[in-house]
């Protein structure tokens, strides 16, 4: 997976995440001793280039939000490395991190909950500037007005409070707040999931425009593959704490390899009644990450006859075709695809690239 770093062609990637692990202890028994781990994120590698959007898609509980929080150090990762602009921030102290936080900000799913209801919109947007001690009162006020205009809100919004706005407008406030300190990377955690379709389209367009004008990089986390595919340059599909497939969004749509990716595409309701497609029904639900099955978690879910063969096998994605990576999982790939990526052959492939 290390090789995937070379994939970001636009010079040095902004963010490089390697084999990131984020475990949470499960406590039990009389003395509250640790009895196990929730392996929310289990060895995920990902790179984001400058001006690039990487989509992270998966069902609830797959660890995609935790991953988003870990990479900007809202959690303390259990293992792996995170490099931002070449600087290792994996175990940097919060005090050292604070000045760096100017460069990466987060937009949360539910702006009704992530915005303090007792602060005016002006105060909310200026707060990151205050924390970063940027500008004086007058300069901050000007910056807030500029940001309101940027995200399509009227100047008068400054004195109002979050409850006076609709869901879409509140999400605009959340975006303005994240943009205040001029970040280079935005982690967008389900930013449009709570919005109505017509408003969702407005916010997606806003994000696209901001990226075009300001050269931002996005990590776009969502469960809606159609939205993710639309907004992202590359998409990674996550299942139970691990990446199972990643490719450019067109390649993933045209040529999905992993059974889980196929199931996700197939489950999207098609808004064209003329396309009467046969849905590939996916049985069962995402298992708990507390005691994840050994080997292929998805193979286990679909009760694949060759599930046993995946136990003890390294399922880290390998490159199937340039830029298209997939977990070498015998349960989830068609035979000819598996033949190309199965563990023995992957060694040769990676040595070629080095």
């Amino acid at each position, binding site marked *: 997976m290390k090789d995937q770093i070379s994939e970001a062609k636009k010079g040095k990637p902004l963010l490089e995440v390697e084999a990131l692990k984020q475990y949470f202890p499960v406590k039990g028994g009389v003395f509250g001793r640790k009895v196990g781990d929730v392996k929310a994120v289990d060895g995920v590698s990902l790179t984001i280039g400058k001006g690039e*959007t990487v989509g992270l898609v998966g*069902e*609830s509980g797959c660890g995609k939000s935790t991953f988003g929080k870990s990479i900007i150090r809202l959690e303390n990762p259990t293992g792996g490395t995170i490099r931002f602009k070449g600087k290792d921030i994996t175990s940097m102290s919060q005090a050292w991190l604070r000045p760096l936080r100017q460069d990466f900000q987060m937009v949360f799913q539910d702006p009704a909950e992530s915005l303090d209801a007792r602060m005016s919109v002006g105060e909310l947007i200026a707060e990151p500037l205050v924390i970063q001690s940027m500008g004086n009162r007058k300069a901050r006020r000007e910056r807030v007005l500029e940001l309101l205009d940027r995200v399509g809100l009227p100047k008068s919004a400054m004195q109002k409070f979050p409850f006076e706005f*609709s*869901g*879409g*407008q509140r999400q605009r406030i959340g975006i303005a707040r994240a943009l205040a300190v001029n970040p280079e990377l935005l982690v967008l955690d389900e930013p449009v999931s709570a919005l*109505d*379709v*017509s*408003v*969702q*389209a*407005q916010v*997606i*367009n806003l994000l*696209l*425009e901001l990226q075009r004008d300001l050269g931002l990089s996005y990590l776009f986390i969502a*469960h*809606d*593959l*159609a*939205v993710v*595919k*639309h*907004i*992202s*340059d590359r998409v990674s599909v996550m299942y139970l704490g691990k990446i199972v497939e990643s490719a450019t*969004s*067109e390649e993933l*749509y045209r040529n999905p390899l992993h059974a889980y990716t196929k*199931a*996700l*595409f*197939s*489950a*999207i*309701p*098609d*808004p*064209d*009644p*003329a396309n009467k497609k046969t*849905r590939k*029904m*996916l*049985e069962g*639900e*995402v298992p708990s990450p507390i005691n994840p099955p050994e080997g292929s978690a998805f193979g286990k879910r679909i009760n694949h006859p060759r599930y046993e063969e995946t136990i003890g096998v390294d399922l880290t994605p390998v490159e199937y075709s340039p830029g298209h990576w997939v977990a070498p999982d015998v349960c989830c790939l068609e035979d000819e695809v598996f033949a190309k990526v199965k563990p023995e052959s992957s060694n040769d492939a990676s040595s070629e690239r080095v």
Partner: protein
Amino acid sequence: MSDALLEVRDLVTSFQTDNGWVRAVDKVSFSVAAGQSVGLVGESGCGKTVTAMSIVDLLPKPSGHILEGSISLNGEDLRQVPPKRMRQVRGGEIGVIFQEPMSALNPVHRIGKQLVEVIRLHKKISGRKALKEAIEWLDKVGIPDPAARAMAYPHQLSGGMRQRVMIAMALCCEPRLVIADEPTTALDVTVQAQILDLLEDMRKELGMSVLLITHDLGVIAEQCEEVVVMYAGRVVERGPVPEVFANPAHAYTKGLLASIPRLENERKSILTTIPGQVAAIQDFVPGCRFCQRMGRRSTMINNRPTFAEIADGHWVEACRECYEG
């Protein structure tokens, strides 16, 4: 239409608020034929849930009232029936599936017991027989190991499983109509597909009608025969799904369809949007409310457009601008 199982005509539902009465549903008419599945679609606050709750008389009391119109089920006017009969209708003839099963199920009772309660309210059978029936229903809705699951509490089940229990509960008295209010909104796409398929199988097997309320046009396209599009408390367009999706007539329907990100779209292309947002309910104009959103100084702002049939079964309520624009 005489063959309609459910016929809603000129329904007006209002809520009493501190600032006076607001009309959440403003003269809504549509019908559901026997065995048909009808989708009711619209954005949040358009009145789709209030319409559904008006049908089964589950409006929040004392603020919500049906002021005008008629709701008839098989020719019986549900607005006139006594509460005792309404309790038989609700659950017995109309099953309801709510959006959030965790708040619709009672957290302190085992799910088997909750199902038995419903069954025994509508059928005169012994508790043991009812439990047997409950377990059969859990099996029918695809819950593995139903006998053991009947002893589980709602919190012990996943979201998808809870929604299956809700479906079992709505169907266990074999109603003629099921109202499903956003049954899959809280679920993952893969589980959503399972639940929608289950609902469709059940509809075919039991020959019932389904009124599916959703904000997702994709779900309607896959699931329903008829669609009713609501905007700001009114029905703006309705008709057969293939016809409405192929030839949307109202600017709002067109806008909704255009703003869905589609898989075949080019990456990072700008989506078509509907400018502005729905006006707050107390600010609704008497005339064309979509013109109100678009900020048009239309002559229709004070006069409500008429509801007209433009093709076989395809009805539109639009002013000239919303129809042509």
